[in-house]
């Protein structure tokens, strides 16, 4: 990877991390009145996958969407405005954290009902095939979503129709507090998916270069012969399911060791990579400083911004 490319990826990772760390601080003031599902530990997946997408690709996601939103849009001010419920947010404050979207940037929809954007992404891919266009559609979802029948129904249909849709499973091994072992009657996600007529691959979601390699490989094959692809990336959810805190001490899982934390932190891990390819500590520091200012500005602007007027309650319901 070239230094320039790597630093631009780093900037995205740092932006997402710093934005969420800022949420962790500010949330305790009770001004962000929206449930927040933070993705600390998962940043590498959205950033890595989206880095490989051709221009004009469209994405769908879940309530754990901050990384996806920021990597696709780079819109820090809009992001914080939405979290503070302000008019300048992408959903005018009506959406909140769980439903961020930016159709103008290809981020079509995210949803707080598990699994619900999966068939919608397949429909978007059907439209590409129908119109004879070749846009790629990507849908991100958690491992829990694969327990819903709609996942398998969508995968089946996409395979049947050879649609150009990329299913990306962000697997943290948890659905709220329930471990995978207590929810799955099958041995392995990739094995189960392998029975379908699609490309599939997987790896460590904390390893950004690996995510990129994996994604590029399947995208290349999809472009040669259209078929859906399924990507499986594991990661560690560093925080509680919803909210700003850690929850390693409440009893359902153990705290990772220092080494594990370092290995599973996509930002720290990517910093090592940057140094390996010749970036300097100063290069990294410069990125962090610039991002810090961007985040500070976004939060301050959002705090001072106006709420929607009462009449906005009634707008946007129907076309």
């Amino acid at each position: 990877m070239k230094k320039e490319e790597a630093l631009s990826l780093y900037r995205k990772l740092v932006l997402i991390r710093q934005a969420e760390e800022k949420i962790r601080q500010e949330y305790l003031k009770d001004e962000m009145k929206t449930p927040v599902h933070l993705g600390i530990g998962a940043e590498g997946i959205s950033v890595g996958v989206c880095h490989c997408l051709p221009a004009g690709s469209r994405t769908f996601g879940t309530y754990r969407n901050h990384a996806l939103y920021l990597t696709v849009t780079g819109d820090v001010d809009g992001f914080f405005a939405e979290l503070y419920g302000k008019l300048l947010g992408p959903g005018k404050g009506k959406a909140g954290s769980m439903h961020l979207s930016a159709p103008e940037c290809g981020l079509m929809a995210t949803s707080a009902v598990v699994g619900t954007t999966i068939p919608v992404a397949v429909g978007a891919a059907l439209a590409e095939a129908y119109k004879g266009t070749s846009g790629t559609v990507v849908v991100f979802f958690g491992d829990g979503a694969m327990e819903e029948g709609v996942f398998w129904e969508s995968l089946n249909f996409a395979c049947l129709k050879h649609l150009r849709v990329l299913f990306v499973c962000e697997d943290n091994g948890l659905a709220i507090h329930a471990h995978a072992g207590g929810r799955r009657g099958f041995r392995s996600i990739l094995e189960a998916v392998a029975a379908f007529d699609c490309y599939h691959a997987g790896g460590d979601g904390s390893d950004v270069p690996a995510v990129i390699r994996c994604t590029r490989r399947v995208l290349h094959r999809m472009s040669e012969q259209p078929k859906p692809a399924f990507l499986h990336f594991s990661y560690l959810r560093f925080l509680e399911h919803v909210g700003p805190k850690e929850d390693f001490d409440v009893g359902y899982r153990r705290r990772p060791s220092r080494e594990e934390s370092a290995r599973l932190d996509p930002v720290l891990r990517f910093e090592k990579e940057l140094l390996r390819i010749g970036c300097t500590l100063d290069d990294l520091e410069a990125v962090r400083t610039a991002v810090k200012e961007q985040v500070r500005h976004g939060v301050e602007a959002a705090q001072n911004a106006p709420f929607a007027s009462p009449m906005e309650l009634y707008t946007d319901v129907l076309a």
Partner: protein
Amino acid sequence: MKSLISFREALNLALVKEMESDPSVFVFGLDVDDHKSIFGSTDGLVEKFGGERCFGTPLSEDAMTGVALGAAMSGLRPIHVHIRADFILLAMNQIGNMMSNLRYMSGGKLTIPLVVRAVIGRGWGQSAQHSKSLHGVFAHFPGLKVVLPTTPQDGYSLLRSSIRDNNPVIFLEHRWLYDIVGDVDDERVVPLGQAAVLHEGDAMTLVCSSWMNVEALKAAKVLARRGLAVEVVDVRTVSPLDEQTIVGSVKKTRNCIVADYDWIFCGFGAELAALISQRCFGCLERPVERLGFAPVPCPTTRPLENLFYPSALTIIRAVERLFGLEEADLNGEPFYSYEQRFKGPF
């Protein structure tokens, strides 16, 4: 025995009592067995009754609802729990095509004793996908019972009655009610299908569901200060509906506002208004007024969310309008505010 307990403790107590007295009762659903235990309502069930009688499930609402149905047809009494009613929409096929019909289609041979518990209502910016009530949707199907308790006593007694009922019962619990504390007599039986008069009056009947009762009681207090005695009728069960109590009250007061915790258009409020207009036509002094959610998806941001939901103030203003009274100055009047009680993230 009487005790002063919260709504969540009342639900928990009802589950414990029924599980103790009937080994065929079991509780299942996403997150019923984790440390947060559905806002505390399933607390301790695994420890007391074991993982066979209280267990979590995969995320598979449609299939799990069918599983509940199959177990109920086979002599068990399942209680299937959802942390939000919105997720039941994934299971509407099992509810609307199967659960509500099988007894009828079997010529009365099948019995389906099951309870679907779900949380409704507000939290911390719950937004459009975590805030629906849906009682009107469920009650639309013949073959289902639909229960919305308000007081801790009713939470306790109606849950016990629902578990003992030999029919499918949808049991909807408002999130804010969980913290409300009240006297609960553990011997008190409340059958399904009976409304309750929570506050007596002769000027106006307020027919309410779920949280709207709390708002209506506050409105009743404020209105009493200017000499208006309003009667608050808690429907308690939407289906079967206690027409007699509702009609009786309106015949006495000759005025009625229906305050339903749902959208107005095509909702349960329309059913109530139609019923009252038909049965009380001759004695009504004015048309039945209806209050409910604004006709939009529920917004996240607090200022718009506050406009979306009807409140005690909405009720007071409606009463004033109907009686042609000037709006009372209510500056400084303490209304229920969850700012101090309810914090994020969920």
